[in-house]
């Protein structure tokens, strides 16, 4: 009854989200039952990193055609190794890459991925968010085959000793999948960034984040005035940047920047997880929103429930008065 942990690489190392997935895997079974899977064209370094963690063994799934990620390549390789080892569960970090292939992998095995999981309880019962974080739902796997699970970034802690290995490194095995170049139908290009970033939100001490609640571009001047008074950088949730009201480089969240300032003031931001993952590590979070049930209040230290068009000018004035 083994548990697969599919590792993901980030700049040549195992990603932090992969270790969070290990923490989740350890909720589903004992460390000696966890098989860490390193997949790629050259996986030696990843495998060595994994072998130093609290896992039963490591499998290197290697093939030259896996050098750059493609859904077809990863699907073929992982399907073969899953069919050979027949794990009870397969755990992934819920990354953009995993979202691209894991649903199809589960489907190929007649299964359904339980994606973006935030908690695992006895059962196992999996909790995930619904309606952009306004509610949560608990799920159970009913199929006979392996249970595929991906876990949300930041939901499982990696600072526990349980992840660290006592004693020598875990055994490392190799598996060479059969892949033909013709089976890979997509041609993925080299990752790139758009124009160089000119705003470094990551080093800002104070940030005012603005969301849909601001309603119109015209109204941005209210938050600009607040940011200026606070000596804060202005940031936004995705919809504001999608509308072109602020440049993409001011976007905080899974597709933008991750920030952890001393003060994060969320204005008219409901708090969908895509935004929360980018700012919930802030030291002090203030939320201003008209909806008392908005998920942003779950991570806020201070909250004001009210009309931001009244509250924001009042806060700006109060900051000025206190100077």
């Amino acid at each position: 009854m083994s548990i697969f942990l599919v590792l993901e690489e980030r700049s040549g190392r195992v990603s932090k989200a992969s270790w969070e997935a290990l923490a989740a895997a350890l909720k589903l079974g004992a460390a000696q039952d966890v098989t860490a899977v390193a997949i790629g064209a050259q996986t030696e370094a990843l495998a060595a990193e994994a072998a130093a963690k609290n896992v039963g063994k490591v499998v290197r799934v290697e093939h030259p055609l896996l050098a750059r990620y493609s859904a077809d390549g990863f699907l073929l390789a992982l399907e073969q190794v899953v069919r050979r080892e027949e794990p009870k569960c397969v755990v992934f970090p819920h990354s953009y890459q995993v979202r691209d292939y894991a649903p199809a992998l589960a489907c190929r095995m007649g299964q359904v991925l339980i994606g973006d999981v935030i908690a695992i309880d006895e059962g196992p019962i999996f909790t995930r968010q619904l309606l952009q974080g306004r509610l949560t739902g608990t799920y159970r796997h009913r199929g006979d085959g392996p249970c595929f699970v991906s876990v949300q970034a930041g939901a499982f802690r990696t600072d526990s000793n349980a992840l660290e290995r006592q004693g020598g490194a875990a055994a490392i095995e190799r598996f060479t999948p059969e892949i033909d170049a013709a089976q890979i139908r997509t041609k993925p290009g080299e990752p790139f960034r758009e124009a160089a970033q000119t705003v470094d939100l990551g080093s800002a001490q104070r940030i005012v984040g603005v969301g849909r609640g601001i309603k119109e571009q015209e109204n941005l001047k209210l938050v600009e005035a607040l940011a200026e008074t606070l000596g804060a950088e202005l940031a936004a949730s995705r919809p504001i940047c999608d509308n072109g009201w602020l440049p993409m480089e001011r976007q905080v969240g899974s597709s933008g920047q991750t920030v952890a300032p001393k003060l994060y003031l969320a204005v008219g931001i409901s708090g969908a997880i895509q935004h929360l993952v980018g700012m919930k590590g802030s030291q002090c979070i203030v939320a201003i929103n008209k909806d008392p049930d908005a998920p942003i209040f779950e991570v806020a230290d201070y909250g004001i429930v009210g009309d931001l068009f009244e509250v924001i000018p009042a806060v700006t004035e109060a900051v000025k008065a206190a100077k």
Partner: protein
Amino acid sequence: MKIVVAIKQVPDRDAPVRIAPDARWIEERDLQWAMNEPDAYALEEALQLKERYGGEVVVLSAGPERVGSTIREALAKGADRAIHVVCDDLNARDALGAAKLLAAAIKPENPDLVLTGLQSEDVGLGQTGVIVAELLGLPHATLILHVDKTDAGLKVKRELEEGWFQEIELPLPAVLTIQSGGNKLRYATLMGIKKAKTKELRSINAAELGSDSAPVVALEKIAAPKKQKTTQILSGSAKEAATTLVEKLKTEARVL
């Protein structure tokens, strides 16, 4: 290019949601509904592709009768015709069950391209497009912001994490899931709304698609989220709350 766009009707973002008495889903009575926003971007991409390369845009939506209003909105924005897979139990289906319905409806259409949003704003599984591709045996790409046609098929711009992007080339037919923000959404014109009434809207009963199977994954219970922090809600008038906030940020949190 013949394009099928799969769209979902979801609770309106600003509509208050209440947990149903059996705690298995939300109370749907008196709820306002809207087109899932990522699907609106998928529709926009389809309409723009048609404007650039010609062809046909067919919208497809599964759900109960109320879904008709969202389908008509898509027709008013410029889709040529629509297919409504009538099913009252969409919520009881898992991602595979829902994708099977859509794939069965798409297959006889033989489209060049299938587009859908990257995820729904209600259950947020983010799996439908990928599973539909798998069921139809088509290549796919996800989180797409821009689509160009090439001699060999498509060249698309895919969003990666933390501000990175990637171009992917893939042959047609293919399935793409569209990320929001790649285009500006259009509004339906008065003329569009008028025209929509004359456009073909075909209903198929889910049962006719013969794709019923017991769900592998079941949503058992919904609840309000657990609080991660104790939030001090500051009450009073805007001015009072603002004054208290600034004081607390200074003396309690010490961040000012």
